[in-house]
């Protein structure tokens, strides 16, 4: 390697950005070249003075709080989020209607008045349940990787017996179960792990016919929905869609 070539690559070499072969070539040259040795020393001195003289600017105190409050009052991203593309006809409602909406909505939450049935609305519920389970530190009611512990835990709490599979050998270890509330009824929520990610699998009985898995993406989460042998299933996670479909395939086997 010529001196000129070595000088071209010297910074990348010292930064550890060269592949092994190139790296050895530069190293061999530098060892026998005074000019390159000097350039290497200059590099070291510069590194040293940048580190020593503390030229890093840390964020001032209070900036984080100011950002948090601006994020909270940011109407633009909120509004953008309030009008989902699936409801193009949605228009802002008046204050009176908003109050009415709140009453109606709380009635829905208690499951006494109305039964929103479209898949889309249900999918939103699944997303909300998933997020709540992650945030409220309420992931599992029964924490166990043993399907023979999780399954009996549900008996007496549900009007059906969920099938609980442990998929640890397939890369999706069971971590526990939880009671949840979806589609105006009690449902079983089974928790699985995929690396650092949590998968919620919701299931409950249905009178609907079998359907093949269908993948949806809502607000950064992937969802897979299917119906099989009188049970309806919703799997949701922030793992990528193909991994989640893989999980579903293993569930259905």
């Amino acid at each position, binding site marked *: 390697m010529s001196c000129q070539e070595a000088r071209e690559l010297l910074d990348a070499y010292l930064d550890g950005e060269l592949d092994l072969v190139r790296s050895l070539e530069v190293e061999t040259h530098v060892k026998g070249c005074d000019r390159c040795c000097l350039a290497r020393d200059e590099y070291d001195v510069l590194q040293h003075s940048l580190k020593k003289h503390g030229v*890093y600017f840390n964020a001032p105190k209070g900036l984080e709080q100011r950002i948090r409050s601006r994020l909270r009052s940011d109407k633009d991203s909120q509004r953008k*989020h309030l009008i989902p593309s699936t409801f193009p006809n949605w228009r802002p409602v008046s204050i009176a209607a908003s109050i009415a909406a709140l009453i109606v909505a709380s009635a829905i939450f208690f499951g006494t008045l109305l039964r929103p049935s479209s898949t889309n609305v249900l999918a939103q519920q699944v997303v909300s349940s998933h997020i709540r389970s992650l945030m409220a530190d309420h992931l599992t009611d029964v924490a166990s990787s043993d399907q023979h512990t999780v399954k009996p835990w549900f008996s007496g709490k549900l009007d059906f017996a969920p099938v609980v599979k442990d998929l640890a050998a397939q890369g999706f270890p069971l971590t526990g179960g939880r009671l949840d509330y979806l589609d105006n009824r009690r449902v079983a929520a089974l928790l699985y792990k995929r690396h650092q990610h949590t998968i919620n699998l919701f299931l409950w009985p249905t009178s609907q016919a079998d359907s093949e898995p269908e993948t949806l993406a809502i607000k950064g989460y992937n969802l897979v929905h299917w119906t099989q042998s009188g049970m309806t299933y919703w799997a949701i996670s922030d793992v990528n869609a193909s991994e989640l479909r893989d999980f579903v395939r293993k569930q259905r086997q």
Partner: protein
Amino acid sequence: MTENIWNKVTTNAVWKARRDRFEQTVLPHLNAAYNLARWLTGNEQDAEDVVQESYLRALRSFDTFQSGRDSRGWLLKVVRNTCYTWLRENRGKTVTQFQESGQEPQSTYADPETELIEKANSDLVRHAIEALNIEYREVLILRELEGLSYKEIAHILEVPLGTVMSRLSRGRKELQLRLFESTREAKT
């Protein structure tokens, strides 16, 4: 109607959860964001404004961020773009189009001089960095202060890897030269 209202209430909850997730993902990188903005804008107040604006922009485009990806790089890219917009609007002439000059700054150090550089106090170092062309300055900040890889820097700057390599190399040489000169001035 009821479906729409119901949807509004749930999306509102989803929005809050999304904002929380956003905060957990990118607020830990606040120092990195501020440091970059501070070095690119050149003063505290503008850096604060730019950082706040960057976080708002980032929140609005959070849907494009895939979880598990490099959140610091993603945020820094937004910060950098916001800085450039700000610089264009507020400084006009300050952002000059960068031109790769064929010439490399000539290195002229012998041993006693490199010792001088080592003694340069942090003010001198800061002034020397501030005096650098912005294209050299940003790669230096990202590499030396944030410790990012060439690949990460290339992604933030949207330039080829080789460009990162050459800008960094030239930026360092120019910085060495400025430090050398300013340290000598300080001595005399």
